[in-house]
């Protein structure tokens, strides 16, 4: 049974359609990456799952319950990090962590201590004195220190330095190994690529692609770069080849997965002295989806 199940969710704000028949599934024990351009509907989806917004139509369940009506029972089992962390200016970071932790239903003391140390946060500073990254750390620590089953994280590391990002990644892996589920909305493609088991790409309020990274890659082209023993000819006639760049005996192109052997055979006919094959990066997958938007 899916931990999160969303079917045909529609949400309109005035004249803007934020969610347009969105359909998505998150399985238990996975890190599910949620990617999309600004304004695609990622934060709106998370807010619907938290019962902060009511969808106009369609249905969403989380942990088997209705997010709009079962708030008290569900929220004990969910942890949330908002995209824009707003803290109470006069409370210290430590006070906020304890407050949200207790309002949620409890904090793991040992974990909390460890997190405050690992994330290098000064819990005695008042919230108004924190930088953006530190405010995020407060929200992150109170989420990670809790004992939830599902974590809804909206760009949790967007303001953190690379060291803290990798600390976060470690904790995320630990939690998933423990059987918890994470829905991670992020713009940091390398992080999503590294952590996610499955990815959903959202655009204009609906999910346009979903699957594991391998599945998504399978639909796209591999990048090939080679140094040949003679100047290549006839490569442009190989089916499935695109973005062909020839510089003397160096050659680079993209080729669709099913035509990879044709391309390699063509290269082999010229004699290959160096060869690099790279699966498409998430960035390429992502950007190729949005090429359509710009044209």
């Amino acid at each position, binding site marked *: 049974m899916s931990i999160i199940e969303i079917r045909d969710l529609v949400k309109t704000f005035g004249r803007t359609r934020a969610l347009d028949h969105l359909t998505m599934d998150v399985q238990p024990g996975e890190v599910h990456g949620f990617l999309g351009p600004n304004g695609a509907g990622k934060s709106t989806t998370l*807010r619907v799952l*938290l*019962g*902060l*917004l*009511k969808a106009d139509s369609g249905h969403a369940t989380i942990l088997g319950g209705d997010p709009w009506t079962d*708030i*008290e029972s569900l*929220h*004990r089992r*969910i942890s*949330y990090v*908002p995209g*824009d*962390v*707003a*803290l*109470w*200016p*006069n*409370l*210290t970071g*430590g*006070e*906020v*962590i*304890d*407050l*949200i932790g*207790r*309002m*949620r*239903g409890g904090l793991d003391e040992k974990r909390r201590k460890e997190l405050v140390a690992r994330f290098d946060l000064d*819990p*005695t*500073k*008042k919230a*108004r*004195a924190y930088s953006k990254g530190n405010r995020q750390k407060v*929200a992150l620590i109170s989420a990670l220190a809790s004992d939830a089953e599902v974590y809804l994280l909206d760009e949790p590391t967007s303001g953190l330095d690379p060291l803290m990002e990798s600390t976060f990644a470690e904790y995320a892996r630990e939690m998933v190994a423990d059987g918890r589920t994470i829905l991670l909305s992020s713009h940091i493609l390398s992080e999503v690529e590294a952590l996610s088991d499955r990815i959903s790409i959202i655009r204009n309020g609906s999910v346009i692609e979903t699957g594991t990274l391998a599945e998504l890659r399978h639909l796209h082209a591999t990048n090939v770069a080679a140094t040949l023993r003679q100047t290549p000819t006839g490569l442009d006639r190989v089916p499935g080849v695109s973005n062909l760049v020839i510089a003397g005996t160096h050659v680079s192109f993209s080729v669709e997965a099913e035509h990879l052997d044709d391309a390699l055979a063509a290269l082999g006919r010229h004699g290959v002295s160096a060869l690099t094959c790279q699966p498409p990066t998430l960035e390429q997958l992502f950007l190729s989806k949005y090429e359509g938007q710009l044209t």
Partner: protein
Amino acid sequence: MKGFVGTWHLLRLAWRRDRVLIPATVISLAVLIYYSVVATLALYSNVAERVIAAKAAGAMPSVIAMYGHIYDPTSLGGIGTAKVGMIGFLTMAILAIAIVRRHTRAEEESGRFELLGATVYGRRAPLAAAVTLSLLTSLLAGVLTAVASGAGGLSWTGSWAMGLAVTAVGLSWTGITAIAVQLSESNRTCGAFAFGSLALAFFVRMIGDLNEGSFLGVLTWLSPLGWAQQVRPFAGDRFWVLVIPAVFTLACLLVADRLQASRDISSGLFAQRPGVARGQLGSAEDLAQRLQRTSLIGWAVSFALLAVVLGFLIDNLTGFITDEAADMLRKMGGVGMMTDLYISVEAGFMALAAAVFGVGSVLRLHGEESSGHAEQILATKVTRTRFLASHGVIAFVGTAGLMILVGVVMGLSHAIASGGWSDFWRDSTASFVQIPPVLVIVAIACVVFAWLPRQPWVAWLVLAACFVLGEFGALLKLPDWIQQLSPFAHIPKLPAEPMSWTPVLILLALTAALVAAAVVGLRRRDLATA
């Protein structure tokens, strides 16, 4: 003088943001003044009638305490603008505080100044722009006041005197707020300083007015509200007095400029103290109490002090009565009647003040929502109802508590001053009976928060409307059914009127119904994040 680059742009930005607030407030005030003047003129066409009425009003300590003396009972303008003049001063002061604060501290706190910070503007520009807008608004308010009053039929010299007095109040509070804004990091604390100074100025002026002729009478000259009154529009038109607020404002602005030079953006003069590493707060209720406790304490202390003074005066009312007034009072029901009237009127004003606290307390919920705090609270196991209750309970219990405090302290103070407890019950119940209408107003604020999340100012409008209906309803000859819209119109004004339980119970039932409506509204709507 450098540092003013960009002032013009910031001024235009400030005006763009306040282009509804300022005209709406200033024009409403002018309209109120106009109709008030016209109605008073119609009421007292005969000089003799007018003089008696003025003297009777002038003998009422409750009137003096709230509105000051009527210095020339024969002048029509005197009696025509007695109430509306003080209301104009207070409105102007509040508007000036709001304008200066909105475009300085609030901008820093929200981070919007940082956005501008990389553009070209001098260090002095933000405060200069805010102050300029406030000064221009004060001027506009003064002009409209004068025009409304003169157009209503009063003498033009007196009207200009009153208009300039209103401007003077605006100027004074522009200066005071400019300083307040330098003192603290938090927008809320600056507000406490600025509004606190207004309350203090009112209080000082009140004591001065009530003790005119004696040594304490000098106090009225220590208050910017007192200066505005001492211009004595329609009763001498002493324009020279205006020099005092002008000089005061200039001095305040120079001090504010100095203070500003020595602080960073978004910091105050008092350094940030470090806090605790672990917190005691563990629930939405704890959080609400922590957020509201300073404000509640401040209000409670102010109320207690005011109640002490009001209670003490109960036995000293006779000092104000002249022979003609005594005669008229005898016709109205005697000195006892006057005392009862005094107590009930004061209780009524304290109730309005308590309602201000109550509405502000409920609207903290709106602040939490628009700042993004509510999102994090509601993502935990706190339900919507519980979130509403966390601040709502403080609003209801706080306002009821304030009125109980006023009643008890006023009774105590009178008992101590008069040496006997016989009147304690009479004195205190006057305040207790005001609790139901105040709770209705607080409940209306809850409904506004629940059903009109983007228009929280409606709650303030309702309160202002109740105030206007109460003070001006009879004068403006508004139809009965309109006057009955205010919950304050329905309760028996103890001790002047006999007690009746029906309206009290109805108002309490109405409060419960409104709160239920608020809960329904909050549960069905989306959270409106910033």
